């Protein structure tokens, strides 16, 4: 009543931007160089931060040239860090917008938006007896969080880690991985420099880790490597014990998966038809409805609308859901039959 049309948060954030409860924010505390083209960005999250599981990724919203961008990065820090900070370790993509900013321009003190923590590439509970990590390049980032977590819990009992990078200088976390190997007998590290010795292939597994079939395996790296390893597990071992990190879930495009339907927007009176692969937001915009939107990837919840009737399918997971009155994100849901939305 005192703040309408604003929220108390809009005034609190004048004192400290991290005090906003409307959206989660963080402050960059430090930026340290890992390799020639990667840095670790350490962030102090606001008090709404609920923690993460090692292996999960976080969407980070940064402002580059005045424009806000969302990007997803694996969290590389130990969830049990004493200072409560989190870190991400982006690698430079020269043609990109955000990584050149983070690697070269960002400075401590900068405020960033933090989206939700997501990802199912996590360690099972209870922990398996024997673990195998296979990573390549910047694919080591989610695994670093796992290793730090395991080290703190004293759980680096029987862990094999096969990592590859182009050159010795290009190994992200090189010193830290070697340090872990020195301190923990249960952690065995093999780093392959692909520039000299070629890529790590499925055929190398028997030589590098003879009991790979008996281990719960976690893979993170380029799609090609994941595909090759997946085929290998499928043929020679139990594929259910293989866990892979496929970054950036594909939203939309897969019309085969769902039914689609007619969407009615209650506020504007517009109707739109969407196939099973088109988000409600996109279909609505194409039909001329002015809809709220933000990140367009299911993170910022700017686009939420109340589902009055019908069911929707989450384009990232394929899960169909829908109870009347449920708040849904229009950017990641497609209609499954006729739906009505209060937008």
């Amino acid at each position, binding site marked *: *009543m*005192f*703040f*309408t*049309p*604003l929220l108390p948060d*809009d*005034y609190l954030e*004048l004192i400290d931007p991290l005090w906003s409860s409307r*959206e989660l924010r963080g402050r960059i505390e430090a930026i340290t160089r890992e390799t020639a083209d990667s840095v670790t960005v350490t962030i102090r999250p606001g008090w709404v931060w609920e923690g993460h599981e090692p292996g999960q990724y976080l969407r980070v919203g940064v*402002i580059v*040239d*005045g*424009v*806000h*961008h969302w990007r997803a990065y694996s969290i590389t820090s130990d969830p049990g860090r004493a200072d409560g900070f989190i870190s991400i370790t982006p690698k430079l993509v020269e043609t990109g917008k955000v990584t050149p900013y983070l690697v070269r321009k960002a400075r401590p003190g900068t405020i960033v938006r933090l989206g939700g923590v997501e990802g199912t590439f996590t360690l099972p509970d209870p922990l398996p007896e024997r673990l195998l990590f296979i990573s390549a390049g910047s694919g080591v980032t989610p695994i670093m969080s796992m290793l730090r977590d395991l080290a703190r819990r004293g759980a680096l009992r029987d862990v094999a880690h096969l990592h590859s990078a182009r050159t010795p200088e290009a190994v992200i976390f090189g010193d830290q991985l070697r340090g872990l190997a020195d301190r923990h007998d249960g952690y065995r590290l093999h780093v392959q420099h692909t520039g000299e010795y070629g890529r790590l292939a499925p055929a190398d597994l028997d030589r590098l880790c003879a009991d790979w079939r008996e281990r719960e395996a976690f893979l993170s790296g380029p799609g090609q490597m994941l595909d090759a390893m997946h085929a290998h597990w499928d043929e020679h071992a139990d594929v259910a014990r293989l866990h892979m990190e496929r970054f950036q879930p594909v939203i939309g495009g897969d019309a085969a998966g769902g039914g689609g339907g007619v969407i009615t927007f209650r*506020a*504007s*009176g*517009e109707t739109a038809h969407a196939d099973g692969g088109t988000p409600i937001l996109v279909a609505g915009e194409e039909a001329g409805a*002015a*809809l*709220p*939107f*933000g*990140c367009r990837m299911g993170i*910022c919840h*700017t686009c939420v609308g109340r589902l009055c009737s019908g069911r929707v399918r989450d384009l990232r997971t394929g899960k169909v859901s829908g109870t009347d009155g449920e708040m849904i994100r229009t950017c990641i849901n497609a209609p499954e039959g006729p739906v009505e939305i209060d937008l």
Partner: protein
Amino acid sequence: MIESPLARLSDDQLEDLARELDAIHDEVFAELGDRDRRYITSMIEMHRRLAVLGRVLLFAGRYKPAWLAGTATLSLAKILENMEIGHNVMHGQWDWMQDPYIHSSSWDWDSASTPEAWKHSHNYIHHTYTNIRGKDKDLGYKIMRIDPHQKWVPIYLFQPVYNVLLMAFFEWGVAFHDLDLDAIKKREKSVKALKRELKGMARKAGRQIAKDYIAYPLLSGRKGFKSTLAANVTANIIRNTWAHAIIFCGHFPDQTYTFSEEEVAGETRGGFYVRQLLGAANIEGSPLFHVISGNLGYQVEHHLYPDMPSTRYAEIAPQIKEICERYELPYNTGPFLKQWATVQRTILRLALPGGRPRPKPGPFRRGSENGGAAWHPDDAERRRRGATARGPELPLDGVRVTMPEQP
């Protein structure tokens, strides 16, 4: 009958003009960046600091100096919030930042109008059909005769009186205007839509009234209730009067043209630009004046490019003037009091039957009395070479003169 310069320009000239004006838009949008974002975020921050300061000062409102300082601060905060922030954000001027909150789809303002209703009546109807008689519902806001072409009816005898009331209660006038009861009569809008809008307006109005006229006065305690209430009423009236003055100076000074539907039938993009140029008038003033008027002193530039961040209007004004000079078009502008006085004179004169359009300014000349600023001819050449076909929010097929049904 005054011949509109619109009729003088050939199709080729209009096409060239459109290309040049599009290029200015593209050039500015290509270089928007941190500087622009810093401006709007610091403006938003300043509004919030001023609002807090004003409210806090008013807790001591029983003491006259605190009351005066608090009321002035709150008025200024409300003016910034409505004009430089609310109006411009809801125009989509800052949508390019992709910020989830500073965005035309999510912004709400300290005013009686709901964003949805206002965006429809202002962004769409007024900015598309600008100064087309019978189509632009902001031309006299349906209750005033500000153009001699409008048919006189006896109610206009009272317009000098209700104009003064409108000044004081402008936000309510605008909210009521946005409901567009006229569209109901013409069956352009359903009763259901009206009911929904009324509900939205009632909710919005309820909150506004509760905040300024109940919550803060109550918070000031038994002894402070009256002084805070008086301060809040005063601040709203000051904000309303200021907004009314600036907005009326945008299209109603003597210099501006209005258009018949026939004149604009089949209008091209060049024609649209010329109509905006002729239908709007600027106000000269200091940088501070432009900030507290939401940069609507650059009404001409705003109407050419409604989606361009307001801070850029001052920067492109010399280029617009140069184009006006080359195409022998007027560049309507004048000092605030002069513009305001001509508007008031029109309101008084046209309360009575009759009246003729006032004389219009000739083509813009650098160094002439209607403005002029340093300009490098190279800039025009550079722009002509880099001209592209994209432009601001405007349909390629010109302006439709049949009104669509409102949702």
